[in-house]
């Protein structure tokens, strides 16, 4: 076929990350506005909206990351090494989001549910923020030397 192998990979990775942005963007958005919904019923409805699909939507990110690792390993290495701290925070936020959805209704106490609601909302925002930091800085251009090592200290701005 007329398209090169590496171009195919580029398109696949782009499609996967776009798919992730659309699908998990929906979940993260539902999480971000969670604290703004005041009634317990509205919060329950919002959680049920992402209920059956949020786990699968996260998988698109894993596929994108894996494809990046396989197809463009130097990009993967440069980006992940440069943004080590944002990625670690992103991982912890993913864990906290998952457990707060799970644990939210396990105990009858009101402070329990409120605590996990706050955790859920903050972790959703942190996930989006961390990915935005990485992507934004990549779009601005990463300063890398010959071996692909990041030269400056990454900051949020």
């Amino acid at each position, binding site marked *: 076929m007329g398209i090169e192998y590496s171009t195919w990979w580029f398109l696949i990775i782009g499609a996967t990350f776009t798919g992730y942005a659309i699908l998990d963007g929906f979940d993260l958005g539902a999480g971000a506005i969670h604290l703004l919904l005041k009634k317990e019923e509205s919060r329950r409805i919002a959680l049920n909206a992402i209920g059956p699909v949020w786990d699968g939507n996260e998988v698109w990110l894993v596929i994108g990351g894996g494809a990046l690792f396989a197809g463009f390993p130097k990009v993967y290495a440069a980006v992940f*090494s440069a943004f*080590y701290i944002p990625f*670690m925070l992103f991982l912890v936020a993913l864990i906290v989001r998952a457990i707060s959805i799970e644990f939210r209704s396990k105990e009858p106490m009101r402070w329990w549910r409120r605590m996990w609601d706050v955790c859920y909302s903050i972790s959703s925002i942190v996930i989006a923020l961390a990915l935005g930091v990485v992507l934004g800085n990549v779009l601005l251009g990463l300063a890398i030397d010959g*071996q692909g090592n990041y030269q400056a200290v990454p900051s949020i701005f």
Partner: protein
Amino acid sequence: MLHQDFNAPVTGLKAFKKADRPGSLNITFQSYHIMIAIGMLLIGLTSLAAYLHWKNKLFTNKKLMLVFVWAVLLPQIANQAGWFTAETGRQPWVVYNLLRTSDALSQSVKAEQVMFSLILFTLVYLLLFTLFIYLLNKKNNPWSRA
């Protein structure tokens, strides 16, 4: 066993240069044997339990039940010991004969960042473990309302 043939010679440790040996062989040795010992112990425990169950004497044996409660920790320990064996034994190579660990580290990730993430993950796991024990305890407590 290493070469799938009982008579094949196994290369001794001294045959490798000092720089090619793993840093601390004691750790590798001890953790491997801890893992095997726990494995054998669990096999023994399970056989004992199966035999007692056949005799219908299993669930009334209070001492054995207590042992079982604490034995839940053993597979975790064995699992970790196995990983210690694998990771300490593979040094100094990341890919055998091709890539050393000292050559494989990323230069742009500073030591403080790795320490930060290590502490972060320890805290997350501690939190999750505490929650796990708390919730499990509440579920199984006969006096709780859950």
